[in-house]
């Protein structure tokens, strides 16, 4: 399984294309114009917003109560009463997919958010201060990269219980390293630039320098990684459920729905059980990735259309 792939960087300085001017915050209009040219990203934003609204509003939108079973009806494919069909115990799949989306999207968004925050924090500190702090933090990153993900997840879930909160904590704790490295590289390269010298000379405090001058120039890779982290978290949750390390009933998520339909993958009559949760999952991840693409193009002043 892969998580958010980092942008190119280790200890080197490939962050900005050679000779490019850093994008200052006042070029917001420039950014917006570039972003809106990326039609796929625009569509993705709309679709994502739609999914978020529909899933988090499941309480009002879903036709049936959550997890409600009905042993009297025969399971069947999409019909007028059940747009997405019903499963073996008579649950309405549309309802389940919507409620499942709540958890999957929540996990994805929360993991991306927290791992970004931690990663930016650690990376900025390491890159700016260098020296011992950098070495220490870099070793911390190495530590997290060495320890196998699954071991941590398996053990942590065992001890914290398999709730969505514990998943968010664990997945965020495993996902911040990339952003940290990326931000560190960016900060390393930017801190030498003249405008930072100027800010320092004018007496700005370190946090101020970092926040107001350096980080805005890293926004590109940060945003891209954050969006990719969403996708990775959603998929990782499904994978963990397959291995038996995931959420437990009565919780429902796209991962759980896909797993319950594992054998439906091969049957024509039951394929709808896999199709709908799978469709939502794939569309979400696609949109998130296109969004990331759009952001990357928008932040890169040299991209051509």
């Amino acid at each position: 399984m892969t998580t958010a792939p980092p942008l190119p960087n280790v200890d080197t300085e490939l962050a900005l294309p050679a000779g490019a001017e850093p994008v200052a915050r006042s070029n917001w209009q420039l950014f917006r114009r570039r972003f809106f040219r990326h039609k796929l990203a625009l569509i993705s934003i709309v679709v994502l917003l739609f999914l978020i609204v529909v899933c988090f509003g499941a309480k009002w939108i879903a036709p049936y109560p959550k997890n409600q079973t009905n042993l009297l009806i025969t399971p069947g494919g999409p019909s007028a009463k059940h747009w997405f069909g019903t499963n073996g115990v008579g649950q309405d799949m549309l309802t389940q997919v919507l409620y499942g989306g709540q958890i999957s999207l929540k996990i994805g968004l929360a993991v991306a958010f927290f791992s970004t925050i931690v990663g930016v924090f650690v990376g900025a500190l390491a890159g700016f201060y260098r020296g011992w702090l950098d070495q220490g933090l870099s070793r911390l990153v190495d530590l997290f990269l060495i320890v196998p993900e699954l071991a941590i997840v398996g053990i942590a879930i065992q001890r914290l219980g398999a709730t969505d909160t514990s998943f968010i904590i664990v997945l965020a704790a495993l996902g911040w390293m990339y952003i940290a490295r990326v931000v560190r590289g960016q900060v390393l390269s930017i801190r030498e630039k003249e405008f930072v010298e100027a800010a320092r000379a004018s007496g700005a405090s370190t946090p101020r320098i970092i926040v107001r001058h350096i980080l805005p120039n890293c926004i590109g890779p940060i945003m891209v990684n954050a969006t990719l982290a969403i996708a990775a978290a959603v998929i990782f949750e499904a994978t963990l459920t397959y291995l038996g390390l995931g959420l437990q009933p009565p919780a429902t998520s796209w991962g759980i729905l896909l797993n319950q339909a594992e054998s439906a993958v091969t049957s024509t009559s039951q394929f709808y059980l896999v199709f709908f949760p799978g469709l939502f999952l794939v569309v979400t991840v696609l949109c998130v990735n296109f969004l990331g693409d759009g952001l990357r193009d928008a932040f890169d002043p040299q991209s051509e259309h």
Partner: protein
Amino acid sequence: MLTYIVRRIVYSVPVLIVASFLVFWGVRTTYDPTAKYRNNRDAARVIAEKKHELGLDKSIVAQWWTWLTDALHGNFGTSYRTNDSVSSMLRHALWPSIQLMFFGTIFALIIAIGVGVYSAVKQYSAGDYFFTGTSYFFIAMPAFLFGLLAIALLVTLPVEKFHLSEPILYSVGLHSNGQSGFNLDYIRHLVLPVATLVVQSVAVWSRFQRASMLDVLNADYVRTARAKGVSERTVIFRHAFRNALIPLVTVVALDTAFLIGGLVITEQIFAISGMGRLFLDSLQGGDAPVLLGWFLVVAIFVVVFNLCADLAYSILDPRIRVS
């Protein structure tokens, strides 16, 4: 260069040690290896015996230290589950996984680089869109779903539809009964597990290669080369390509650790008894010695791979100063 490598190795050692303690502590405090003896007539006696035998009555640090010193002498202890020597279990499990990772990485690289460069050079063409679309599709699909679908479509369906006596591609293990070695049978077994293992990596790497190739193709020095009249082909392969590989190298090195995680799913679905299966069985059985030995082996792999990645940098771009 040498000092850099040495320094990296030296830095890795304390990290490995700390990580080993964390994993040890986590596993030991989470799983009780005597739990399965509780359901037993003589439970109290057996459990007390086992506790002493496994050294569970000492402190965590003491237990960990014993383990570490033994490991440094090559003795990884015995499994709680099977009473087998951990090192022999690891050795048996390592070989199938190495095969999967080796072939997987090679093919993934070839495909990813090919697709990425093509997409970058022919940006926004129909081919580019096609590859982009399929890449994203595969990124979005969890590996286990891909694996099961692949089996259903490529193994079972042909057998049922065409009434074959045996499937074209196999989904169980790496060899048919009685077969061994590198032959057609082996390849037929290898295709689907390798594909499942790397499908997401291929998609991600090709995106990366495309992105970094684009970055480089638009760089000043490339523009200069073009302006000087250098042929496009030379521009691509002499100047751009090598530099565009650099970010990919990072990603591949980092992803190796995750490919190891991907082994768990692949080996589960395709019934291959490698490191992934061993890990899952040990995790679910609370088999701490095997988990620790496993972790050590994997960690060393990751460190070595990252070192190789750094070496690859310096080969690819002599300008890079590694501080």
